[in-house]
């Protein structure tokens, strides 16, 4: 071993000697990656410690996005409304869809879909986007995909206000089942967070993933009942709605907002389980890979 330094520096190591109430960080290379501490307890403790940063990241992202734009935060409402108006024009005029309150039907689907698609795009790019911070400062890296989802949840709530307005303007009936929207949202949020963690971690190693994701999202949009009605689906296509988890989330949302019914228990249970499973998978993959980020960013 290295010789002891005279005087001030000592090479003797006495790890058990600390008794003070101060933060002590112990980092050990050979610690098993799969244990409860590394996988669950330590990251959660860190997230709690950095809760102010989580809040600030959400606020900052909203501020920065609309800095120097004339309409500012109003874009979170205008963009999905425009999306809806275009689709509404195409499907009612060109394709002669004659569903009652089709605008509401479209809009409730669009804002739910956007929560997922924008979470996965922004969340997926969040680690690469935070490279400057991650390579310089110790912080819980998982906060970046998580705040990206929270951010889109904020956007969703603005868009939801627009939805209420749309219902008033188009004289669509209000159903009491709308009160269940937060519960319909919960499994979707878990799903989005898990997905964002998964994509953000993997795209550090495979940059192609972001391009693949874009294409996949484009395809998934059509496999999700946003402009079409799942009950009018030919039997040979039923598997699409049962394989695609997004179909369930969008369907549940539309059931409570548009149809005025609550999804049955098994649908909700499956949706919750899917969301929870995606969260757990995303969390584990992220925590397993996050130490290697710095070599690849």
């Amino acid at each position, binding site marked *: *071993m*290295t010789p002891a*330094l*005279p*005087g*001030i*520096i*000592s*090479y*003797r*190591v*006495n*790890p058990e*000697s*600390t*008794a*003070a109430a*101060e*933060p*002590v*960080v*112990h*980092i*050990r*290379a*050979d610690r098993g990656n799969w244990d409860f501490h590394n996988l669950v307890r330590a990251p959660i403790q860190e997230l709690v*410690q*950095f809760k*102010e*940063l989580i*809040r*600030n*990241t959400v606020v*900052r992202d909203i*501020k*920065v996005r609309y*800095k*120097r734009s004339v309409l500012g935060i109003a874009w979170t409402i205008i963009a999905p409304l425009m999306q809806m108006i275009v689709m509404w024009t195409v499907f009612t005029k060109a394709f002669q869809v004659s569903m009652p309150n089709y605008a509401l039907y479209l809009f409730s689907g669009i804002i739910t879909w956007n929560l997922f698609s924008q979470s996965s795009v922004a969340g997926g790019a969040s680690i690469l986007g935070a490279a*400057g*911070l*991650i*390579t*310089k*400062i*110790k*912080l819980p890296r998982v906060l970046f995909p998580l705040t990206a989802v929270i951010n889109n949840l904020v956007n969703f709530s603005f868009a939801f206000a627009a939805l209420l307005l749309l219902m008033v303007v188009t004289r669509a009936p209000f159903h009491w089942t709308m009160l269940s929207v937060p519960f319909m949202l919960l499994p979707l949020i878990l799903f989005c967070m898990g997905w964002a963690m998964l994509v953000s971690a993997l795209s550090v*190693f*495979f940059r192609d993933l972001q391009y693949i994701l874009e294409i996949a999202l484009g395809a998934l949009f059509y496999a999700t009942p946003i402009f079409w009605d799942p009950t009018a689906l030919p039997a040979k296509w039923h598997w699409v709605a049962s394989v695609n988890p997004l179909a369930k989330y969008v369907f549940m949302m539309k059931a409570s907002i548009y149809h005025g019914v609550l999804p049955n228990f098994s649908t909700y249970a499956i949706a919750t389980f899917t969301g929870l499973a995606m969260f757990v998978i995303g969390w584990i993959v992220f925590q397993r890979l996050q*130490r290697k980020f*710095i*070599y*690849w960013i």
Partner: protein
Amino acid sequence: MATSSLLTTPAVELKGVGVRYQLNLEKVFSLKELLVSKATRLGRQLRGREQQKTRRTADDFWAIRDISFSVPRGVCIGLTGRNGSGKSTTLKVISGVLHPTEGELWVRGRVSALIELGAGFNPDLTGRENIYFGASVSGLSRAETAKRIDRIVDFAELRDFIDMPVRNYSSGMYARLGFALATDVDPDLLIVDEVLSVGDAPFQQKCKDRMESFKKRNKTILFVSHDPQAIQDFCDTTIELKDGRINSPNP
């Protein structure tokens, strides 16, 4: 505050710390290659984890290895060595950014790293907004930051510019804000990587004064610089790194 153990336990202890870089990282993985290598590794792991040392040795490079030292509280220690000798890697391990490949370490107390000033600043936000953001990066709450903000702004000498987006700052202003922020979070351990050359001469003097006052308050400083004069002025002792290992420590 001072129980005797608090004064005697070192602020930083490293024990056999090593960081291995894999030099084949630039190579583009194909998906097939990845799956094959993962599958073989999984097979090895199922049969016992001892195989780890045998893989990819040709492409491995140890940025640091067998680094063991401890820094008592209140001491300013200088890390010296040529480019690529492992100084910054060592600091990154201590600041918690880089997880070591082998060895273990203890860091006691709140750490603030002056590795790159203003690393978390967002150019579109104002100086004030960036202070709040940057302070929360160090784990400070909003209330704690509110108490400090005037002092930070005064120290950075940016009173007139604090509500301007930092995009419009000069590089000196940017670095001053970064230094003022990072040293005002009242760390127990300050990690400084070649940043003292920011700003003009009077500001540099203020930085030096602040570092001195850290030392007086029994705070620990880890200092990396290529400037032998700065090392001599500040540091109580130095550790010299060479090719990722501790060379001969200067007495």
